[in-house]
């Protein structure tokens, strides 16, 4: 939900609640005050009545009470205390009942007690309450309209730099040459600070990225040259015909170890490159053709291990780095071969949405998270322990998904396009 919407909603709820509470308080307060006023009127009425009765020694006629209505009931020797009640009030000449206020009291005339009820209409008060309610409601509506307009125009204006900055952050790529531009006249200090902070951060990220790139290249150079020296010295050393068998055995171990260091170093550098999006060649690729070619390439080793290869491939065109695709497929193929059983099976299934490599192997599922972690490899594996990490990082960084699934007896590596 957008910030303006959230803000609108909150402010409207708060405003409405306050108006509602205010309305209720008004209603109660006005009711109380008007009752007090009426009660005072009625008390005066009552006193006038007492004075009349004392003076005239007779009950007055109803006509003597202007707007009010009075009734007298003989109650003998009973006594009543003065009290005020709400009562329906019927307007003379009509049958319509409206709200009224009445005083109930007692008068004595010639030794007989009379219960006196004087009622008065509350219509005026009711009208007042109605008027106040209407004013409150109108005020509420006006307030809401004002709030919405303010929020829409004022807030949108205030937040404009934020959205402009957000757009720039979205478009920002550490590898690219784009920088965060100033977004013009910003009024709010917070956004000024945000803009500065983002610009600083972006510049730092770009700088760090550049130095990382330099580091990658330098590390490659610094490590590969000594390894090249070792390899070349070994190549020359084995030309020596005076060496004996035991010495050749040691040289063979050196060869193997050097080869492993080389592969490890290459794999680590490749990972850095993938993670930093340093490989950016993209071409339209017909995946079916590429996979067929890979099948041929691996046919020798697959055949030698007595593995059956089944490939079910649909045509699928997509845009990807040919270099990375090659590495990805190599890694998945050699993984399927390496961890297979003698006489096992490999299935390659390519559809419009998926590429699935299934291979037989140890009949137990692997940990679907750990299998992609660095240096998680089987004890018998000759690999670097980085093959699947590289495969997953290629997928993650270039818009594909790779996950592991065990469907007995197959270990499956599934790429989703």
């Amino acid at each position, binding site marked *: 939900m957008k910030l303006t919407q959230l803000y609108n909603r909150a402010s409207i709820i708060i405003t409405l609640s306050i108006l509602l509470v205010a309305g209720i308080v008004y209603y109660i307060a006005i009711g109380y005050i008007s009752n007090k006023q009426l009660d005072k009127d009625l008390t005066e009425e009552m006193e006038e009545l007492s004075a009349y009765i004392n003076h005239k020694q007779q009950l007055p006629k109803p006509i003597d009470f202007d707007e009010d209505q009075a009734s007298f009931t003989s109650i003998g020797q009973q006594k009543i205390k003065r009290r005020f009640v709400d009562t329906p009030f019927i307007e003379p000449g009509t049958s319509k009942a409206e709200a009224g206020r009445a005083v109930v009291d007692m008068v004595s005339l010639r030794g007989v007690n009379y219960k006196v009820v004087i009622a008065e209409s509350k219509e005026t008060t009711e009208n007042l309450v109605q008027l106040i309610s209407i004013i409150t409601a109108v005020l509420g509506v006006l307030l809401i309209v004002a709030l919405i307009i303010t929020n829409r125009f004022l807030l949108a204006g205030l937040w404009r730099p934020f959205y402009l900055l957000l757009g720039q952050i979205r478009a920002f790529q550490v590898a690219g040459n784009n920088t965060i531009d100033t977004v013009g006249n910003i009024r709010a200090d917070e956004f000024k600070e945000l803009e500065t902070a983002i610009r600083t951060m972006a510049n730092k990220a770009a700088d760090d990225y550049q130095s990382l790139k330099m580091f990658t*290249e330098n590390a*490659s*150079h*610094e490590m*590969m*040259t000594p*390894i*090249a*020296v*070792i*390899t*070349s*010295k*070994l*190549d*020359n050393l*084995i*030309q020596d015909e005076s*060496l004996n*068998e035991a010495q*050749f*055995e040691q*040289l*063979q171990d050196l*060869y*193997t170890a*050097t*080869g492993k260091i*080389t*592969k490890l170093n*290459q794999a680590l*550098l490749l990972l850095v*490159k993938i993670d930093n999006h*340093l*490989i950016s*060649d993209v071409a339209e690729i017909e995946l079916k053709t590429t996979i067929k070619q890979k099948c041929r*390439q*691996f046919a*020798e*080793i697959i055949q*030698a*291990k007595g593995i059956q290869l089944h490939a079910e491939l649909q045509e699928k065109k997509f845009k990807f780095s040919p*270099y990375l695709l090659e590495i990805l497929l*190599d890694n998945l*193929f*050699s993984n399927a*071969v*390496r961890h297979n059983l003698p006489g096992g099976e490999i299935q390659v299934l390519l559809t419009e949405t998926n590429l699935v490599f299934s291979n037989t192997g140890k009949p137990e599922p692997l940990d679907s998270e750990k299998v992609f972690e660095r240096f998680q490899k089987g004890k018998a594996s*000759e*690999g670097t322990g980085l093959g699947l990490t590289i495969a997953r990082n290629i997928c993650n960084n270039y818009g594909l998904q790779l996950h592991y699934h065990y469907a007995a007896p197959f270990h499956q590596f599934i790429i989703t396009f």
Partner: protein
Amino acid sequence: MKLLIIEDERALRESIAGYFQEEGVICETSADYASATEKIALYDYDCILLDIGLPDGNGLTLLQELKAAGKEEGVIIISARNSLDDRITGLNLGADDYIVKPFHLAELKARVMALFRRRSFRGNNQLQYDCINIDLPTMEVKVDGNLVTLTKKEYDILLYFIANKGKVISKNALAEHLWKDEIDLADSFDFIYTHIKNLRKKLADNSGKDFFKSVYGIGYKFS
């Protein structure tokens, strides 16, 4: 064949020179940009091995200068940078090949020989070794005049060994040449054994000679 090795790492430079040193090959070396420029200006070479990262300049600049001066030398770039961009830049600047450190000397020799053949024969590209005749464009192999059918791998192996004739080639170098790092080393050693056994037999059947000599389990020598 006259060769110039431009490489700043002394040990590597000497190794390469030592490996290439044989009858008919003259190896000269340069440790930096300045001396390399001087040598290139003074002499003509058949092939130049050029390290990109020199202490006093970039090898690619040297390559540009070389091409600008209209020199005809074949150039193989030696680089520690295995990046696609560098490779493409190097080849676009007119380099003939690009080899990434670390490499086996046998691989380098094979590349140099291939380049040398391409440049010196132009068209009529026949490779003769002892009684073995290879027609490179058609990949036809004749032994004592008899056509021998070789698999792709056997053909690759044969060319590789002829380029490195008289040298012991380690199985590791051969495995890398044939499969890069597609398969595990242990598996590739088995394949190498099988391929060489078959190739050896095919050549021996037609010539009566055994060209391959196994060297203590570390590799093979072709002579």
